[in-house]
């Protein structure tokens, strides 16, 4: 198997990208990389555009290497990766919608984020006047006694907007087709030209439930681009916030999944624990979701004087209460009846799509950026990465349960060993230019941030939510399940709409 380093030697290296290499390649190497993805040698971690270039982020899980290859597109087209490797398809449709750079020969040339409502086409490329609106062509379905159920974009619960089109034979889902993009806010457009402060705020608002993970990914990428290092205390506080965010979300999800199986008692108890975590976060960092605390160069504020005590108290509470909830989950037959064997995602598909987070880890894919890429301070902390192979709703619940336990331990380790010292490295940004990339493990999976800075401003920033490689798998996992189990499966995935739509 070729290594990513060999690949990087095949092209012209861009000197200023850190910490991983970026190489400008020609068609054959681009196609070779797509073939390697299809064969499973590497994982696709991102595919994004610029007005006349496309970039592809690759990760080699075995050697813990990452690399970016770029292809110049003077003719506004590039060889489709999705044709060889379907996980790239929606990303290519997005590149066309935003930049007008076309993938050649993709099996799916429909628009994706562009719903023909922006009043312009290719807003980040060479903007063009849109044609007359035409209806979105959903995939045709043929067969006896099939019916369709269209749901959304406004759903029945307090959730984000998206459209789901079910084709069902009786009760059973034959196909689910998603249509997303409703929450597209044009974040990458707003990023261009923004100073680092504003850009960091935008990054922290890409997906509210992962505001810490995004702020962290953005800050690390910006620091890499500027060639500075955040001080040790900031790095450890960042990890502390990331683990609190993971705890809050996993606790909320475990309760909500059980609630979607009509077991409200778990929701009540788990939502109390979640609230306890948010209150501790508020005490410790001045904001319940810990928003805008991590910034390029470090952290904007220190742990409050009573913060450590508040966090230790909530860890103790969860340690006391959570085991009984786990036992209840495990021993309630009516609940297990709904979650076991429901919404199965096969390990092969999870690997093919490089599905991150609990979705991948419940289907045998052991990738966790904290372990696999071993960024600080996780290289210095003890924790397990729980992996199951069943791939059903139950497995996704169990991975979350085990991760709650790991995060509790991580929080304690961080508090025990929190280094002192400065909070913020000075940014002499205006003089510097550079490119940086970071991959950070959010609660949902790995978030990728890539950016180019010049004169203290963002030239181009791309943020890739883990949901990009998870949403398509929900379409596969729901097949053959009953329509009524969709909310349960959907919640067990808990993909981000806003993070995906950007």
């Amino acid at each position, binding site marked *: 198997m070729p290594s990513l380093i060999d690949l990087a030697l095949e092209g012209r290296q861009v000197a200023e990208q850190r910490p991983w290499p970026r190489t400008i390649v020609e068609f054959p190497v681009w196609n070779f990389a797509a073939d390697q993805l299809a064969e499973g040698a590497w994982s696709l971690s991102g595919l994004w555009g610029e007005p006349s270039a496309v970039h592809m982020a690759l990760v080699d899980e075995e050697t813990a290497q990452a690399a970016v290859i770029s292809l110049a597109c003077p003719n506004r087209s590039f060889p489709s990766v999705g044709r060889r490797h379907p996980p790239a398809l929606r990303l290519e449709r997005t590149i066309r919608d935003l930049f007008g750079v076309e993938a050649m020969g993709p099996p799916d040339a429909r628009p994706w984020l562009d719903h023909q409502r*922006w009043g312009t086409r290719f*807003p980040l490329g060479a903007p063009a006047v849109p044609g007359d609106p035409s209806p979105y062509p959903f995939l045709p379905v043929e067969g006896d006694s099939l019916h369709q159920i269209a749901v959304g974009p406004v759903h029945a619960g307090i959730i984000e907007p998206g459209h789901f089109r079910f084709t069902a034979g009786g009760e059973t889902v034959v196909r689910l087709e998603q249509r997303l993009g*409703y929450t*597209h806010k044009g974040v990458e457009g*707003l990023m261009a030209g923004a100073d680092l402060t504003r850009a960091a705020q935008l990054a922290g*608002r890409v997906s509210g*439930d992962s*505001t810490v993970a995004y702020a962290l990914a953005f800050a690390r990428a910006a620091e890499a681009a500027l060639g500075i290092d955040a001080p040790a205390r900031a790095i450890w506080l960042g990890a502390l916030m990331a683990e609190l965010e993971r705890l809050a979300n996993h606790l909320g999800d475990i309760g909500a999944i059980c609630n979607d199986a009509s077991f409200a*008692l778990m929701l009540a108890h788990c939502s109390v624990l979640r*609230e306890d975590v948010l209150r501790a976060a508020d005490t410790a960092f001045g904001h319940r979701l810990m928003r805008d605390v991590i910034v390029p160069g470090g952290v904007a504020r220190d742990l409050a004087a009573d913060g450590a005590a508040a966090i230790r108290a909530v860890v103790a509470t969860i340690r006391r209460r959570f085991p009984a909830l786990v036992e209840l989950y495990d021993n309630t037959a009516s609940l297990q009846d709904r979650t076991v064997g429901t919404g199965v995602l096969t390990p092969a598909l999870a690997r093919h799509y490089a599905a991150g987070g609990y979705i991948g880890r419940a289907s045998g894919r052991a990738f966790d950026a904290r372990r696999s890429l071993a960024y600080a301070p996780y290289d210095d902390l003890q924790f397990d990465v729980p992996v199951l192979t069943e791939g059903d709703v139950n497995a996704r619940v169990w991975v979350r349960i085990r991760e709650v336990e790991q995060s509790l331990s991580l929080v304690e380790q961080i508090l025990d060993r929190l280094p002192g010292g400065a909070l913020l490295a000075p940014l002499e940004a205006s003089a510097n230019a550079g490119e940086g990339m970071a991959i950070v493990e959010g609660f949902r999976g790995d978030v990728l941030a890539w950016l180019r800075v010049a004169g203290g401003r963002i030239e181009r920033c791309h943020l890739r939510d883990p949901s990009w490689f998870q949403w398509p798998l929900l379409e596969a996992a729901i097949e053959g399940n009953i329509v009524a189990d969709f909310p349960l499966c959907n919640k067990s995935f808990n993909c981000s709409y806003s993070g995906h739509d950007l």
Partner: protein
Amino acid sequence: MRRLLLPSLLRRPLTEAAPAPDDAALREIAAAVDAAARRRLGRSLSIREVDAGSCNGCELEIHALNNPYYDVERFGIRFVASPRHADVLLVTGPVTKNMREALQRTYDATPGPKWVVALGDCARDGGCFAGSYAVAGGASEVVPVDLHIPGCPPPPLQILRGLLALLEQVDRGAKAG
């Protein structure tokens, strides 16, 4: 399960005391709730939440209103599944151009009397997403807004105080009528 239920019976409830309604909110909505509407609603409000393009942060805190600490149903405030059952639309996020029509249609599907509460800094004026090619602006770009609850996201207690102010107006009128 007994191991969970029994201690719950013996523990003192977690639920917080009711907060005072928000003064600023009270002033803002005083005009929007007239006596006739108050008579019809009594002391209850059915809310339909509409995410018009939020980052999902506002949704997290709206969800928190249902946890035992805030237990919003004790005030007669209920989240409903359909706009046709709703008195109030609780709108979050900058209204994206891709969601504009869906918000308008949800509003049109809500029977009168109805109120619109714009929740979060984005719903006020687009927040940090204002000016994007993909964003129409705040909720008032599309539907008439009766009350704003600021914050990014507003914490649950703040949301509760805003909603109580609305409820207070409704209730006061019901008694007067």
